[in-house]
């Protein structure tokens, strides 16, 4: 603790995952997350962990399914096109209630798109992506430090609720270097204890003092009445998560805000610069930055829309995805304006200021 090091987001999140007790990592190379898989290839053998470069994204997520079923902390990472390939496995992870961490270092799409930062996978991450009724906890970092901190947060959340957790990053956060401070390494004993908390459901030998058991890692329930119970049980877990785990940042939010902006991840960084400039010119503009994009801070956004707020602005590196959730939160109380940037391009503070100034 205490030592700050300068690192790329991709490397910082990998280091933080190892420190959080992740000893199994399966992935397939893709830009712009290559530093992450390379860091794991270098460091996992040093902690006697498993690094395995899979034959495909599909295989990698299914290796994650297998390892998670053994009750161990396991992670995979990719970028947008690769995450699409993982969607089958993510649905199975959710159905079988397996804790696992998936990192998406988003790039431009659709299709092969490009390799520059984007936020076009918001819908995929927060509204499904795979088949069936399920949710992922989705954390959206905005700095290298936060990206790293989310590694341990996501493992803890995955273990607590037995759900897969996604960190929704992008090419800018993955590639950018910033100072970062890490937590201590979990000891081997601590990691072993983390695994044992799952013994009532995970696959393990009969030689742990608990006697014979028949645990099943499975998402199949052929009887509709049983499947209904299973899905309603998932719903209860998701409701618990919505109650307990919403996280957001408020930046210059106060009772006299004339405008409120909403942005997440990389986009939020740029919005902060833009509103700093405008506030220095005498305006009073605040920013809400969702940190969990599922569960979403609907109530927290709604609370900021008081009598003085004339308009809400949403800025995203896509054609308008999170803005739908903002509109649900604002619920027609004030107009919601949207500005997006696509193609892997990132807007400048000037572009954001222009957008807001048009409504002054």
């Amino acid at each position: 603790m205490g030592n700050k090091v300068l690192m790329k987001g991709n490397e910082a999140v990998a280091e933080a995952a190892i420190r959080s007790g992740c000893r199994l990592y399966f992935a397939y190379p893709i830009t712009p997350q290559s530093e992450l898989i390379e860091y794991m290839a270098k460091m996992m053998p040093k902690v006697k962990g498993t690094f395995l470069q899979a034959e495909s994204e599909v295989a990698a997520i299914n290796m994650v399914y297998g390892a998670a079923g053994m009750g161990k902390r396991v992670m995979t990472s990719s970028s947008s096109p690769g995450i699409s390939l993982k969607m089958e496995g993510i649905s199975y992870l959710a159905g079988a209630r397996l804790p696992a961490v998936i990192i998406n270092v988003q790039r431009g799409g659709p299709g092969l798109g490009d390799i520059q930062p984007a936020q076009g996978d918001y819908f995929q991450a927060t509204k499904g992506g795979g088949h069936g009724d399920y949710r992922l906890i989705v954390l959206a970092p905005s700095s290298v430090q936060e990206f790293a901190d989310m590694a341990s947060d996501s493992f803890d959340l995955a273990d607590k609720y037995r759900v897969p957790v996604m960190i929704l990053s992008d090419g800018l956060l993955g590639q950018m270097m910033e100072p970062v401070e890490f937590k201590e390494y979990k000891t081997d004993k601590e990691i072993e204890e983390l695994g044992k908390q799952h013994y009532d459901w995970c696959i393990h030998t009969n030689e742990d003092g608990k006697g014979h058991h028949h645990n099943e890692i499975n998402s199949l329930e052929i009887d509709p009445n049983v499947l209904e119970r299973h899905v309603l049980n998932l719903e209860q877990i998701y409701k618990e998560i919505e109650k307990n785990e919403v996280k957001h940042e408020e930046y210059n939010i106060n009772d006299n805000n004339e405008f409120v902006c909403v942005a997440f991840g990389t986009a939020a960084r740029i919005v902060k610069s833009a509103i700093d400039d405008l506030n220095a010119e005498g305006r009073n503009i605040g920013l809400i930055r969702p940190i969990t994009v599922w569960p979403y801070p609907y109530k927290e956004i709604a609370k900021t829309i008081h009598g003085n707020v004339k308009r809400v602005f949403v800025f995203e590196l896509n054609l308008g995805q999170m803005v739908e959730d903002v509109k649900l939160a604002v619920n027609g109380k004030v107009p919601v304006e949207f500005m997006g940037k696509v193609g892997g391009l990132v807007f400048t503070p000037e572009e954001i200021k222009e957008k807001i100034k048009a409504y002054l």
Partner: protein
Amino acid sequence: MAIIAKRPDSLREVSFTYCPGCMHGVAHRLIAETVDELGLKNQMTGVAPVGCSVFAYKFFDFDMAQAAHGRAPAVATGMKRARPEMNVFTYQGDGDLAAIGTAEIVHAANRGEHISVFFVNNAIYGMTGGQMAPTTLPGMKTTTSPYGRDANDIGYPVRVCELLNTLEAPYYIERVSLLSVPEIIKAKKAVQKALTYNKEGRGFTFIEFVSTCPTNWGLDPVKSQQWAKENMIPFFKPGVFRDKGTEGGQK
């Protein structure tokens, strides 16, 4: 009174979901008996596929996983890497392993994963109602090859043992049949060898069972066995393709 035959300890008291005359029950029994004989039950685990044997996770009396279609070798890879102290097998049919799961089986074999794969080949998709499989024979009629498989249009059946035998890493590859009692006894020996190698941590082991599907072939069990002997065996020849545990190693 001496008990001369009983349900293996490693099979649970759960009714199979298989059709009359189906050979999955035989294959399950061979695996379960062998797990008992080798004293592996306490550290054994397996992966059920998608297909007729999708419920295999309910039948074996140890912890089991169920995988997405074709992904069992990848799931087993994650399982074995996570808990190397356990012995892991996959149980897969021909559609699962040789069509949608081709990449996963080839690469698990190529890495020499320390797992056993039990591959049941009956040349047809059973659970979905008799569609063409990657191992359906030329000319064979199925619901999706109603005029017979045209090899010039859709290709020839995939011989998986031969394919995997081109790779360096696999430790043991054998094709057996379940088409008669003597063949079943031979198949049992192959299962014993595969799980013994698995127990000893030797590497990747692969057994293909040439089998039947009376329901979807539209033949009774006896005629199915006869048909398989006459038509499948000439194409899918039983034999040891690879055995690194013996002198010479390869056949």
